[in-house]
């Protein structure tokens, strides 16, 4: 023990072994990211709660209600753009399973383009509402409606940036543990946006329209 220790130079000694024998780095990260996404879900819970308490008749202060400005089929087109984006991302990840780099990149490009379509439809919708004088300042009800839908849109925006970053990293770094781990966490993030969107679409857009 003492003879061994005398050979260790404290200035260059490594205290941690960088290799991981059976420790599963990817699973640890994806589980941690899943925890983060669930806390993101709580953010949406508070916004849904705010919309719930601000969607009574008096919340609109006599002004426009979602029943007047929501266009169900327009928003259904948005829904399909997002669902297709999620599908193509999934198919890209299926290509990753077979180490097919071009298949993965194609999937990411398709997911990106469809995500941009979703966001463009959303921004066009918001611009249209603004042109009708319907903004966050109109009433508490409209405020809750816009904040909830646009927080979701902001998630999509950051997801799109992340998709671009992952395309660059796949091309420059290849399938390293870090890159594959990030692709998995991005998949979780992107799929969760579709799940949140189901709630937003049904309980905010459709229910708002029929109220």
């Amino acid at each position, binding site marked *: 023990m003492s003879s061994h220790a005398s050979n260790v130079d404290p200035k260059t000694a490594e205290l941690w072994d960088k290799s991981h024998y*059976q420790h*599963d780095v*990817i*699973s640890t990260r*994806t*589980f941690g990211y*899943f*925890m983060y996404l*669930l806390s993101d*879900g*709580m953010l949406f*819970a*508070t916004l*849904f*709660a*705010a919309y*719930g*308490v601000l*969607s*009574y*008749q*008096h919340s609109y202060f006599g002004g426009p209600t979602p029943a007047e400005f929501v266009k*169900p*089929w327009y928003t*259904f087109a948005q*829904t*399909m753009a997002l*669902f*297709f984006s*999620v*599908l193509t991302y*999934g*198919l890209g*990840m*299926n290509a*990753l*399973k077979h*180490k097919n780099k071009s298949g993965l990149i194609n999937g990411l490009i398709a997911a990106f383009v469809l995500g941009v379509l979703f966001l463009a439809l959303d921004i066009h919708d918001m611009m249209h509402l603004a042109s009708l004088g319907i903004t966050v300042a109109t009433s508490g009800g409209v405020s809750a409606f816009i904040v909830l839908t646009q927080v979701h849109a902001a998630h999509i925006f950051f997801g799109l940036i992340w998709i671009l970053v992952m395309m660059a990293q796949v091309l420059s770094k290849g*399938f*390293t*543990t870090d*890159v*594959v*781990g990030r692709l*998995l966490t991005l998949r*979780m993030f992107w*799929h*969760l946006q*579709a*799940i949140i969107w*189901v*709630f937003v*679409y*049904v*309980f905010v857009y*459709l*229910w708002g*329209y*029929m*109220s």
Partner: protein
Amino acid sequence: MSHGHDDPTLHPEVQMSTSRGYFSGFAISSILMLIATFLVTSRAVPPFGLLMVIAVCAGIAVIAQIYFLLHIDISEHNIWNTVALVLFMPLFLITIGLTWWMFSQLYLHTMIMPGMTH
């Protein structure tokens, strides 16, 4: 769960994705959203029944997506994600439900009454 290899693409979380799963999740949720949109626009069902129907559509669509896309199941690899999600759901529902209940009682007792219904 033991991985005696260094190739990250062989990791179970990569290997468990299947095209069939993604297509199933996509098809089920798309059809349910189509049904919900059609029912709401046609106004064929009375409001309360309609709300129940579209809520069921949303519920099934979300379950299908969680199962087929997020791979939340009771397999050895995913069991802790499932446990976390199951424990998360009551928090999510209680946050929304209790807030909603408190404010509806507030509105009721402060008599801001024009149209208490949605």
